[in-house]
Structure formats: structure tokens, C-alpha cells
């Protein structure tokens, strides 16, 4: 019945396309991924999977329609699915926007509500090993009004619990929280915005609603200073009491720039502030987001039950292309015991010539939540261009730290070499190694414990056929672990085998 409804919707779109005189366009993307291989150490050593994601958009005048279908096939029939995972109707003019169906919305800094998508990502569920697109959307209705002096938003929706795959039954468990929100932002002048949010949440097995509110401000100060802050709280809590038994979240910051210099300072204080059973809010972590693999895996995820901290960053860009970035982050949470996280990061980029750049970083951290002490990470990246069509990048990274209960220091190595030609062809070889006991040991050989360093070697090839089609091939072993993209952290599973991805825009 559900599929029939969607087919009817698709037919209606095509019917409108064919009879309408308004300019319209139907376009989309498709991602197909085929894996032959398996998660290392798993007994099922040749699990072959295929995943396909089709996104269709239709725009006509002020109206637009969107639909997403996902399909996953494996030899394990219970894990297979074909689902229409998103659909949306939207009307938008210069001041008004209405969205019905699946959509994204972030209120303020995400203290009360944050939804997101990581385009192109395919997530693999650790338990059922089902693969699906990684997003956390809202399903319902939203409208917003934009005026010169104010903006208003109203939302009634259910947030997705994205750790459950699309074929999880019952489907209602994937969207457990009903969220109703109102937000108003006023612009008394060009320098100031001030607003507030009211949000009401109904969680499963609870007939009562929880209510939260926030105050948000953004002020442009003279001399390129910008000040912003948000204070969110449970409406049953004492306002501005900042007691540990109360439910609140405070996020504030200031930034500044002058010429080639820029800097920012932020402060956070969260207490009992994971909202709903799906955790649909996302208070900022205030730890630098690193893309260097050794640091990306070591990121800190905030504990919104009780955490406060600061982050400061300074950067300077020199006229001749050199740059320097310095970051300091400190955070402390007190869940069961006091846990401190402290990190110092320094990165320099040196442009040797127009065609040759050297980048280096050094990072020192004490990470009590992960039981990592004196964690030192360093890296050197050389980027050499040859004319306008060839490029060679060599990336070397190393990390070491002491871990409680481990007699030896733990080491991580990362190295890669990549070559690109005419921006349409790219080849890369990646080698990684670790002495982390949790990764070197094969759980299938228990009680024997392997301690020899574990290594991963993989090869990537990417061919952009044209602006619409690209083919990517991975062969070898890929190291898993925590990964963060766009501030969203999730777990990637190890993989060993071959993976083919075909991406199409049409």
C-alpha cells in the first residue's frame, strides 16, 4: 500500500510535467555501491553486498518535490530492503516557505534541535550490518516566514533515530519523538539579532510533554568583533541557576578578524541536556574538527549530561601563501568521576613555490574520557604540482599515547601517496598500522591474545568520466573506527575486499 502511494505520487509528478506550461526540471543523483569482501575477523568471510540510493528532484515555479529510494541486497535475506526513505513537497516564494514530508532544520546552534545529512555517505549498522544513507531528518511539516525585520519558523515533526536501519520494524520506533517548535528572530538593526525558541517534545510511553526554550542573540560589535550566544533550558528548571540537577545548555562565543588575522573563543556549559529518546539535539562539542586521520579518530564527543569547557583558535594567513593555525580546547565532564580533556594543536602551511606546498601539524592531548595520557600526534604533508594537470601528495602521520592498564605506549601510523591526472583520474595507496590492543587482537582466537602490530594496506582509484558520472574503486584493507564529518561523528567498520562505487548526476 505504501509503495503504491509512492508510485501514485511519482505518476502524478510525471503527469504534471507532461501537461504543465511552467518551466520545470526533473533531475537527480544515484549512488551505487558494490562490496565484495567482509569485516576482518568475521566468520562470514565473503559477504557480498550492493547498495543503491536514488534521489529525484522535481522543480516547477515555486513548487518542488523530492523523493529518495534506497535498496540493499545481501545473501542474508532478512537484511535486504527496498524503501522510499524520504519524500518532500515544498512551496517557496520570497517570504514564505512550506515543507511537508522529510526536511532538515537546525534551530540556533543546535542546542534544541539539529538535523543533518552527510551527502554521499553510506553508513553500515554494526549489529545487522545493513547499509543505508547517513542522515538525521525530520518528518512532518514546517513553515517559515522571512521579513526584513524578523523571521518566524514553526515545525511539527518526528526526528529520525538514525542508528536504526530503514527496514527496522516497527517503523514507528525509528521516529520516537514528536517535536513541536516555534522560533522567532528579530533584527532591530543591521548589527543585532535576538530571538527565542519554544519546543515541546512528546516521547514514547509518556503522555506528558517536556518543554524547552532558548534565547539566542548575535551582535556585530565595532572593530570586526562578533558576539553570539544561546541559552537553552527545560521550562521546569530554574532560569540561569546553573545547578547540576537542572536541565540547561549554554553556548557562547566571540570572534574577531583584522587583515590576515582571525580568532575565536567559545564557552559551553551543558547539564542534563540530551533531548528526547532519539537525542535530536546536538550541542556543539567545542573541540577542533580535524580531518587528519590520526586526530579525526581521537575526537571528543561531548557528554551533554554534565560538561563545560572552552575552545580558542587563532589563525594568520601570510601574503605569500603561508599560514598558521593554533587551537586550544579544554573540557571537563563529571559523570561518575571527573574527566578532563585538554588539547593543544598547531598547524603550519609553507608554500615553497606556486607548485609545492608543505604542511605540518603537531598535537598534544590528555584525554581522560578515553583514558589516553600524553597523546602526541604529528604529521607532514607534501603537495607537489606538475604543470596544471598532474599532482602528487605524500601524507605521513604518527600518533603515540599512554593508556591506563597498558604497560607499553600505543602507536598509530598513517601514510598515503596519491597521484592525480587532469583532475579526472586519481590513484592512492594508503598504509596504516597500530599497536592498540583492542585492534591487534583477533576475538575469534580467544583465549589467545594477539599483540603484534596490525596493518592495513588499501588502494583507491577514482575516475571522473565526465561532470555527471564518476567511478571509484577500493581494493585492500580499510581501517574502521570513529569518524567525524561536518561535526557529525559516527563509527566506520573495518573492511577487507573490493568496493566499487558509481555516482551519477542526471
Amino acid at each position, binding site marked *: 500500500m505504501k509503495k503504491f502511494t509512492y508510485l501514485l505520487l511519482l505518476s502524478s509528478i510525471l503527469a504534471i510535467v507532461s501537461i504543465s506550461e511552467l518551466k520545470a526540471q526533473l533531475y537527480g543523483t*544515484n549512488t551505487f555501491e558494490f562490496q565484495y569482501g567482509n569485516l576482518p575477523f568475521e566468520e562470514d568471510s565473503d559477504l557480498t553486498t550492493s547498495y543503491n540510493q536514488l534521489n529525484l528532484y522535481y522543480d516547477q515555479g515555486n513548487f518542488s518535490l523530492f523523493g529518495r529510494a534506497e535498496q540493499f541486497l545481501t545473501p542474508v535475506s532478512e537484511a535486504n530492503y527496498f524503501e522510499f526513505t524520504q519524500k518532500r513537497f515544498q512551496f517557496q516564494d520570497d517570504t514564505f516557505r512550506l515543507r511537508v514530508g522529510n526536511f532538515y532544520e537546525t534551530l540556533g546552534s543546535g542546542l534544541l534541535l539539529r538535523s543533518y545529512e552527510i*551527502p*554521499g555517505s553510506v553508513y553500515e549498522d554494526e549489529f545487522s550490518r545493513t547499509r543505508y544513507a547517513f542522515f538525521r531528518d525530520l518528518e512532518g511539516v514546517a513553515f517559515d516566514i522571512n521579513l526584513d525585520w524578523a523571521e518566524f519558523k514553526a515545525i511539527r515533526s518526528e526526528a529520525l533515530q538514525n542508528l536504526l536501519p530503514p527496514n527496522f520494524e516497527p517503523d514507528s520506533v525509528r521516529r520516537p519523538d514528536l517535536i513541536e517548535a516555534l522560533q522567532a*528572530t528579530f533584527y532591530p538593526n543591521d548589527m543585532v539579532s535576538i530571538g527565542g525558541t519554544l519546543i515541546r517534545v512528546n516521547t514514547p510511553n509518556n503522555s506528558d510533554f517536556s518543554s524547552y526554550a532558548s534565547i539566542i542573540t548575535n551582535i556585530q560589535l565595532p572593530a570586526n568583533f562578533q558576539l553570539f550566544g544561546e541559552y537553552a533550558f527545560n521550562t521546569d528548571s530554574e532560569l540561569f541557576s546553573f545547578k547540576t540537577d537542572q536541565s540547561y545548555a549554554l553556548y557562547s562565543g566571540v570572534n574577531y578578524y583584522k587583515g590576515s588575522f582571525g580568532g575565536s573563543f567559545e564557552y559551553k556549559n551543558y547539564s542534563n541536556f540530551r533531548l528526547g529518546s532519539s537525542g535530536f539535539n546536538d550541542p556543539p562539542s567545542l573541540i577542533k574538527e*580535524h580531518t587528519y586521520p590520526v586526530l579525526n579518530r581521537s575526537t571528543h564527543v561531548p557528554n551533554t549530561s554534565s560538561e563545560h569547557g572552552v575552545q580558542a583558535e587563532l589563525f594568520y*594567513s601570510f601574503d605569500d601563501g603561508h599560514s598558521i593555525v593554533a587551537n586550544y580546547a579544554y573540557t571537563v565532564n563529571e559523570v561518575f568521576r571527573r574527566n578532563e580533556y585538554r588539547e593543544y594543536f598547531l598547524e603550519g602551511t609553507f608554500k615553497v613555490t606556486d607548485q609545492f606546498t608543505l604542511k605540518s601539524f603537531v598535537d598534544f592531548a590528555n584525554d581522560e574520557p578515553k583514558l589516553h595520557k600524553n597523546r602526541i600526534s604529528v604529521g607532514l604533508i607534501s603537495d607537489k604540482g606538475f604543470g596544471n594537470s598532474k599532482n602528487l601528495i605524500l601524507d605521513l602521520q604518527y600518533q603515540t599515547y599512554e593508556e591506563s592498564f597498558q604497560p607499553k605506549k600505543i602507536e598509530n601510523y598513517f601514510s598515503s601517496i596519491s597521484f592525480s591526472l587532469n*583532475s579526472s583520474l586519481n590513484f592512492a595507496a594508503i598504509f596504516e598500522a597500530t599497536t592498540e590492543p583492542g585492534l591487534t587482537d583477533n576475538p575469534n582466537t580467544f583465549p589467545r591474545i594477539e599483540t603484534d602490530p596490525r596493518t592495513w594496506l588499501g588502494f583507491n582509484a577514482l575516475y571522473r568520466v565526465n*561532470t555527471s558520472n564518476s567511478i571509484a574503486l577500493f581494493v585492500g584493507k580499510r581501517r574502521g573506527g570513529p569518524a567525524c564529518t561536518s561535526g557529525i561523528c559516527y563509527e566506520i567498520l573495518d573492511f577487507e575486499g573490493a568496493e566499487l562505487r558509481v555516482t*551519477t548526476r*542526471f
Partner: protein
Amino acid sequence: MKYLLLLTLFLGGFESEINEVPNFRLKNLENRTVSYNQIKGKNLTVIDFWATWCKPCVKSIPEFVKMDEEFEDSDVQFIGISIDGPRNKAKVKPFIRSLGVEYPVLRDSDSSVMARLRVTAVPTLLIVNADNEILYFHEGYKSGEEVKIKNKILELLEE
């Protein structure tokens, strides 16, 4: 199901050249919502999707700053779209200004505009004409590619 895959393969066989940029709305660095139509160029618009944590993006931005100055009199408007989440909210403005960016920078913190424009990676650069048609799509950035992008803008200006 099978038909859906067949449809996909059929559609995927084409190289699409023209698609329009819808009149999306995003917040700028001053926290005001602006629409694409309000800030687009009279002749061409160059849209650069980037993020503070993306190394190739950061490398490409100074080149776009130079191009923005060079094409100032040709009605070519550069627009930066940062996909940084709330986690990096504080850094975006001082960072981009310290690189000398004076063109408008918008924030797509949930990547919804990115997805709608069929962008799946950063950096990605789009060149759009006055009728909102996407004329050029470039994914990734390596040293030297700024020459290719600049030549493409010049070529499109001559058409």
C-alpha cells in the same frame, strides 16, 4: 524495484549539462537569511562549496579571492557556501575574512542546499549563468586547477 534500477541506469547514461539552481535561502555570516536571487551575479555566478576542516578547500580559497578581484568588472559574482556545522560556527567568519574573502559567504549547516545541487563532496565549484543554469561543475581541487577554472570563466564570458 528492478525497474527503478533500470530507470537509474538509463538516466545515468546521459551527461547532463543544464540544470537550474533553485532560489535557495541560507543565513549569511551576519546571521541574516538571504536568497540566491538576491546575491547572484548579473552575468555569471561562481558558487564554491567549502568547509573550514577541508584542506583542499582552504587551499583553493586564496585563488578564488584573486579571481574575484580580476572579474570584478565582468559582473561575475563569487559566493562561498560553508557546510560547517554549528561546531565550527565561531570560526567560519574570522577564518574566511583572514583569507581576504570579501564576496558573500553563506552557511549550509545541514547540507540541504548541497544535496539539492547534487554536490556530494567539498570542494565543489559551480558556474551558473544569469538564467540560473549550471554551466560548469568541478569537484575537488589540486594545485594548478585554478587555471582551468579561470579559463572556463573567460570562455563562458565570451559566449
